[in-house]
């Protein structure tokens, strides 16, 4: 028989079936899978957009995540207060664009950073098909 231990209390933290940034297939989905677009969209908005502040950040999070503008208000300390994703107005979350003087992605850097001049060594390496490549040169 079921024995009740006392007054019902909601637990302080409730783990969702899956972390909010790792969408799991719907239980009634016939394919039991999600298209790649789900993760690609989310990783994009979480990496570069305002949702980055409110997601469970994976340990391998790219450095751009920590570069979110510090001016972005944090509506809640708990990731599940009023929804993990989509629970907050975009207005509250901040902008999709970085603050002045900040960049979130290399593509936003001025062109001089994106188009570095070719060095003679690189040109030679290309022409020789990498045959003259020095050990350790390509490791960045």
């Amino acid at each position: 028989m079921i024995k009740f231990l006392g007054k019902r209390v909601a637990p302080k933290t409730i783990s969702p079936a899956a972390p909010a940034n790792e969408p799991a297939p719907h239980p009634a989905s016939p394919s039991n899978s999600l298209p790649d677009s789900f993760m690609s969209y989310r990783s994009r908005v979480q990496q570069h957009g305002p949702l980055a502040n409110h997601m469970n950040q994976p340990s391998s999070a790219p450095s751009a995540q920590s570069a979110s503008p510090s001016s972005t208000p944090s509506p809640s300390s708990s990731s599940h207060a009023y929804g993990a994703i989509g629970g907050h107005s975009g207005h509250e979350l901040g902008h999709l664009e970085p603050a002045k003087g900040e960049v979130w992605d290399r593509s936003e850097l001025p062109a001089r950073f994106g188009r570095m001049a070719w060095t003679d060594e690189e040109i030679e390496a290309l022409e020789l098909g990498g045959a003259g490549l020095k050990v350790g040169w390509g490791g960045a």
Partner: protein
Amino acid sequence: MLRTLVPRAASRSATRPCASILQPTGFCLFTYKGRGYATEAAEHDLVIIGGGVAGYVAAIKAGQEGMKVACIEKRGALGGTCLNVGCIPSKSLLNNSFMYHQILHDTKKRGIDVGDVKLNLKQMMAAKNTSVDGLTKGVEFLFKKNKVEYIKGTAAFSGENEVKVNLTDGGEQTLRAKNIIIATGSEATPFPGLTIDEKKVITSTGAIALESVPEKMVVIGGGIIGLEMGSVWSRLGSEVTVVEFLGQIGGPGMDAEISKTTKKILEKQGMKFKLNTKVLEGDANGEGVKLKVEAAKGGKEETLDADVVLVAIGRRPYTAGLGLENIGLEVDNKGRIIIDEQYRTKLPHIRVIGDCTFGPMLAHKAEEEAVAAIEYIKKGYGHVNYNAIPSVMYTHPEVAWVGQNEAELKEQGVKYKTGSFPFSANSRAKTNLETEGMVKFIADAETDRILGIHIVGPNAGEMIAEGVLALEYGASSEDVGRTSHAHPTLAEAFKEAAMSTYGKAIHY
């Protein structure tokens, strides 16, 4: 701030044009130069597209949770298919046509002599409309009570957080929302080659609004909708033939033994069945409709004549005109919008519930999802147990089930035991002179945990609620069998079926 230098290869890929990076959605986050947000006052916490069962329940729940919510509906009445042209009007007709049929055929043995009994179809339809109007207006009242903004019009996505509404009364309105729920429901699947005119070739919508009783009706599809509406017109005097492609009636989920019993009972009531039969083509050009059919596995062709053909081969998600393509939302091969387990689409602030996404197309499933979706938005967690959603067919007797059937368990290789109890051995069914049908339990062979409950008999639709609760709580058949059930009730058959699963029934 980007402080690290990355390899040249990464640099090149990062400087590719945005369109090549940004997958199928067709839009680019980095290009939102002019993106701005509406003022606080203009932005809703939640906009719901569709005022059917899924949509209106979500709207009310959101209102109760203190959200600023708007619900957009184009029909002109709330409640969707269920309230307006589905569950509710059909139940009105089922109930009243049953009374008519019973008065005609089932009173003498009960000691009631009745005089001249006549059908007043117009009044029967008016009674149906009264029920529908009362309920839809009730939902409108609940909207007001819970401060839900009701917008009459047709909505389409014009942005990730923006919905444009063509208002029914003219004009256009743009709504911005933090969250959007799509709850646009479903529509009847048409039969290829037959044009639905809702007069001669009808769907369930036409079947609840016929102006006269057709002499001959052919129902394409022996699922729940086909059998319910076939029952109505059969009781009112039509000669009804049901053509079903599969080898059993009731659609997927109905236990084969229950389906067989149900078919026998419905045949006794005058309905005819052609199982394993394929409809090849239809011709509605003449006065009636001619349907060419043949055995599903090949065989002799046959032509069926009908005054009215009811197409009841299923329903399909309804998302036309919603502008899903404007925001890159994907649908599967059956037109269902793809969502994750929290009802979120690819765009996590847009959720989908009800018939237009995965799962059975049932109003009560949609209601559960509506509440869960709001809880996910508000609290981050929600709950729907898709293994404990009941199905009910409101014929007479009713058929109801929850959980798995024998065929499904066999396919999964699960060892199970069954127990059943016939209503013919139940005292209340005897006194009611309604002894057809049975209750059947399926439980795990080892643990006795209930895996499925299947009922055909009087009041099965109400009785199954106890079964759903048992399944939700993970009960064993012994738990149910050891629970006191009032005497004399039909529910005792439920208890005794449970008893016969783990031991023996007393009265059979």
